[in-house]
């Protein structure tokens, strides 16, 4: 029997995961919590084999950060990240943190139980790409990684110079990137670009710090 912990702050999705696990004969739900920051403690006290970890959990605790710490301290515990946010950096960050599998709540084709089976069998299951999200006159597949980085920082409301400092580029380069994105999307201003980017979930600033290298 595989001991599972669910880390999910919303009642409905959490209950769905609990129901799937309870309905299965191979899995046992040992803990179901809302806050990713607390997950590490239960890994100490309970014999957890598998964690279904949401990314945005209660009190804005990051599931990715928690997963990174847990994988470092308890490498035997398997972790599946479950999210509905199409933030482009999440896949890369999850891989960097050593997360075993990744599952998009809305669009992943296979059932979660099947993914749990494959993960427990030693497979690392990741979607090929992040979901393609419509964005202005274009969609998210038309953007480069560097453009996403600038876009993410843009949602902080900071100046080009401050964004440039953080990304290691000049303010003129930042301005050029923003201009290119405005042309691609057809948005009228940088504020509109930032608001729409955040609204679509393409970039989330406070939860997307790059893993330490």
């Amino acid at each position, binding site marked *: 029997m595989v001991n599972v912990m669910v880390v999910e702050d919303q009642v409905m999705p959490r209950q769905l995961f609990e129901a799937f696990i309870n309905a299965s004969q191979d899995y046992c739900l040992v803990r179901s919590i809302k806050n990713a920051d607390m997950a590490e403690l239960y890994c100490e006290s309970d014999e957890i084999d598998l964690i279904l970890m949401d990314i945005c959990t209660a009190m804005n605790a990051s599931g990715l950060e928690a997963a990174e710490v847990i994988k470092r301290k308890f490498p035997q515990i398997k972790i599946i990240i479950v999210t509905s946010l199409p933030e482009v950096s999440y896949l890369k960050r999850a891989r960097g943190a050593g997360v075993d599998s990744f599952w998009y709540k809305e669009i992943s084709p296979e059932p979660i139980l099947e993914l749990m089976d494959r993960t427990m069998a030693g497979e690392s299951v990741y979607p090929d790409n992040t979901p393609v999200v419509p964005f202005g006159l274009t969609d998210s597949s038309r953007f480069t990684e560097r453009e996403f980085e600038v876009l993410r920082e843009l949602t902080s409301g900071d100046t080009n110079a401050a964004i440039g400092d953080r990304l290691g580029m000049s303010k003129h380069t930042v301005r050029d990137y923003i201009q290119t994105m405005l042309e691609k999307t057809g948005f009228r201003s940088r504020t509109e670009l930032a608001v729409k980017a955040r609204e679509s979930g393409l970039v989330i*600033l406070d939860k997307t710090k790059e893993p330490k290298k």
Partner: protein
Amino acid sequence: MTAFSSLPDFCQTAVLTVYILIALAELWGILNFVIYKSKSRDVFLGIVLFLFTAFHLAVLTIALDETSSNAVIETIADAPMAFTAILMLLQIAATAALFYRMYRRYQTSVTEMSIKDGADKLPTGLCCFDSDGRPRLTNYCMQNLCRSLTGEYLLNAKEFWQRLENGEISPGNTAVQTGQEPIIILESGEVRRFVCREIIAGKKPIYEISAADITEQYALSRHLMAYNEELEEMKKRLLRYSENVTDITREKEVLAAKIRIHNRLGKILLISKRYLLDEESEIFSDELSQMWKSNISFLHGEAEQPDRDDTAEELNDAAKAMGISLSVRGSFPENDNTATSLILIGARECLTNAVHHAKAERLDIRIDRQNGKTIVEYTNDGIPPEKDIVEGGGLSSLRKKAEDSGARMTVVSKPQFVLRLKIPDRGD
């Protein structure tokens, strides 16, 4: 040919007048050479020229006296008028050359007067004074500024500077900044920044007050300040909006889950109908019953479990699971996820420390409110640390999070372990 001595009286007077003017001009030129410290050669040439003109003037003047009988004087006075005229023109040309040299000297040399002239033309107010406050050089602009700001002439620069530093200026002017670099808006709307500095020159110290016109820069900086405030407000709104978007995304997830349950419910209804209508159905009643139970439990759960804040409860459960008795005095900050999150992470680190290092049985968390700050203190009843705690992964990560959100973290190792967090209220 006509000679000077045979000219009519008025012509003789005119010639003598020209010579007098030439002599005076040469004399003035020599004086200027001396004032502007010209080369000795120029002074010498000037003197020679002047002596020659004076000699010629003297000869012609004496020649007018009919009683004189000097042969040399008579020879010169009786010389053809053309010779006298050529001589006079040569002397005028030499004097003009002298003046040209003097002009060049004036243009290229620095004297006290040229410094004063230059300083008066500056748009910046300038006053140099000694340690007693006695002005050594005050330009026109600074005199005007002093009169505008104090109503008096600048007679004691030290006193003037003290008044600027203290903002003691005439009504109508506004000191927007006092102290070491006073900035004053004058009644005319002009903005001046005053700076006083010591100049090392010679043995005695000299001080200089300068008053730069920063009207344009000041207006631009005000404009920039207003623009930055607007940007800051936009930034706050954008961040607040970002937080709301996270909530919206969560609501979308809930909606998606509800749709799934709805679809599942529809499916069960269809199966139930088929089961009720078809007596020979292969559907097992137990299976159907299980499906109903499962779906009802979702709906029931949703009604009974609103998304409440059970932070303290979750923390207590975690402590219990680790075999630690937890005591929380005070309450978690309301509507402040950042502070609550920091308190939880602090509790997590202290619980881990209490179990692994202190072998404690109890963890105390005290939450107080003081001067717009939440003060959190964590202590345990375990073994005190043997030496000062070196912050490792968990504590250093907590410190980074705390400092990023403007909080302060203190770790005390002796006589017992204490972790203290001072978390400011959120400014927005």
